[in-house]
């Protein structure tokens, strides 16, 4: 972590961190309303909900088919390998793909935007 940023000034020991900022809830309300923090939260939401929603939707569909349409799961694809196993294999690939996308995008954007939000908090706080 870049120790040069002004934000580091706020990084204190958690135990002693009953800091001035914390007692002043107005500052925190301003902090979460700040454009930089809003941008971080929007970035997170835009990344997480589509990825998580799509993958969980696929998985739920698979489990419902496994419960309610077992003949469909038994339709052969290649040799004895059937639709059910194809969906299971796709679930592995989907989990890995989604996780890689999340980590790549998060690594690229979250830290930069977090540091900006913390830096803005430092500048914006009335201390």
């Amino acid at each position: 972590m870049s120790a040069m940023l002004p934000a580091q000034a706020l990084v204190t020991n958690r135990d002693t961190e009953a800091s001035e900022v914390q007692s002043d809830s107005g500052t925190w309300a301003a902090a979460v309303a700040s454009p930089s923090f809003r941008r971080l939260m929007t970035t997170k939401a835009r990344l997480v909900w589509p990825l998580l929603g799509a993958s969980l939707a696929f998985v739920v569909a698979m489990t419902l088919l496994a419960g309610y349409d077992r003949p469909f799961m038994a339709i052969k694809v290649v040799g004895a390998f059937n639709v059910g196993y194809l969906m299971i294999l796709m679930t592995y690939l989907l989990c890995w793909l989604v996780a890689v996308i999340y980590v790549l995008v998060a690594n690229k954007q979250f830290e930069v935007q977090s540091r900006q939000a913390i830096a803005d908090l430092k500048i914006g706080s009335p201390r």
Partner: protein
Amino acid sequence: MIGLTVGIFLLILSLTLAITYWAAKRTNTASEFYAAGGSLSAKENGFALAGDWMSAAAFLGFSGLVALYGMDGSLYAVAALVGFLVVLMLIAEPMRNTGRFTLGDVIAERMQSRHARLAAVVGTIVVNLAYMVPQMAGAGALIKLMLGISYDASIVLVGIGMIVYVLFGGMIATTWVQIVKAVLLLAAAIVLVVMLLAAVSFHPLTLFSSVEQTYGSKMLMPGNYLKHPLDALSLFMSFIFGVAGLPHIMTRFYTVPDARTARKSVLWLMFLAGGFFLVTTLIGFAAATFVGQPAILAADKGGNLALPLLAQYLGGGAGTLGGQVFLAAICAIAFAAILAVVAGLTLASSGAIAHDLYVNVIRKGRVSEHDQVRVAKIATLAVGAIAVGFGLLAQGINVGVLVILAIAVAASANFPIIFLSLFWRRFNTAGVIGGIAVGLVSSVVLALLGPAFLQGKAIFPIVNPTILSMPLGFLGALLGTWIGGRNPAHEARFDAFSFKAHSGMVVNKEQ
């Protein structure tokens, strides 16, 4: 034969003890004891997480389920991977940013209330004990089989092992024991898969056809194990939301320096453990093909010895030297797997008792650094002794219901309070207590009324209670919040919590 097995057992044991000795010298502060000083790399924590998640239940259980029930076993294995999507994207980073050692830390940071922390302690202890007892019972059965010593002596042996690791080496020893175990386990899996693929001339689809020919097309269909139409969905819900509520998994995110490392360590876990779960289908089908279901059932009714029996077959068969070496190695690794997992569970439980209950609830945080470590060690001894006691009682009892219970309570009691603490402004202490109480009671009652406990006479038809108990847990949390009433000062504090949770502002906990 016994000599060889004992030799491999002792080799692995002495390796882990050497790690513990090395780790003990690096374990002085409470942070080092509970969280390895927050200094692990993504790769280290990823391997340790994979070790935590590839328990004996996964290692032996999934391949056994595939060998006996076909597709349902494969569904079980992939469910264990899917669960980490929620951990990765919703829970790991904010948890790491707002807690120090335990789940209780996050809840207390959010609620600023000792009652809320206490509720988290209850959730932690129940889940950990329900998780630990089947592991201990499994280890007892395994050692009894391999070394011929009694079940009771085996349990005590496991108890001593896990207490020694945690007592002297804390999180550093627990982590490295877990890493060693993960490497051994993955190496064994790679050897096994290469050999079984060689046995079918590297045409894995041959295994699917041979299973179909021998046992009928039903093996390649769902419904042999997950009988009720909603069983599969409820099982997946247990994993999807339960993993995020397992305290010994969550604790691992405190061992890394920042959110970025936490995130990358989950990715390591998903490829390491996920790859292993994927090949359990091949291992199970190979066991069904080469060893045969009758022999697997004869060795263990639950199919838990399918993988060791396959290893014996691929090594050259029973009675040959290669077969014995393979069998002994696999059993020793399974034993190491159990030992490592129960050590992690012991550590997470002693954190809940020493750090949450004693230091923060009873003494209100006024405990010196030295005393914190001392209390943590006393708690470790107590947790270890209790676990051994339950392990001894568990002999001959159907522990299957406990396995279901652990993950169902995690999904129904712990997950709702974590999720709502992180994301809902109005969520309050009464909500935490309501969520834990309703989630806990509903999952226990429904599991006891279900097929795992009552077999054919089940009142609740679905094996995993999560499909009903998790919504009930959320309902309890909402009701509690409503009863607790609104508190503008408390709701205003959510801003600070939310900012820290998502920006990771207090990044360097030890500076």
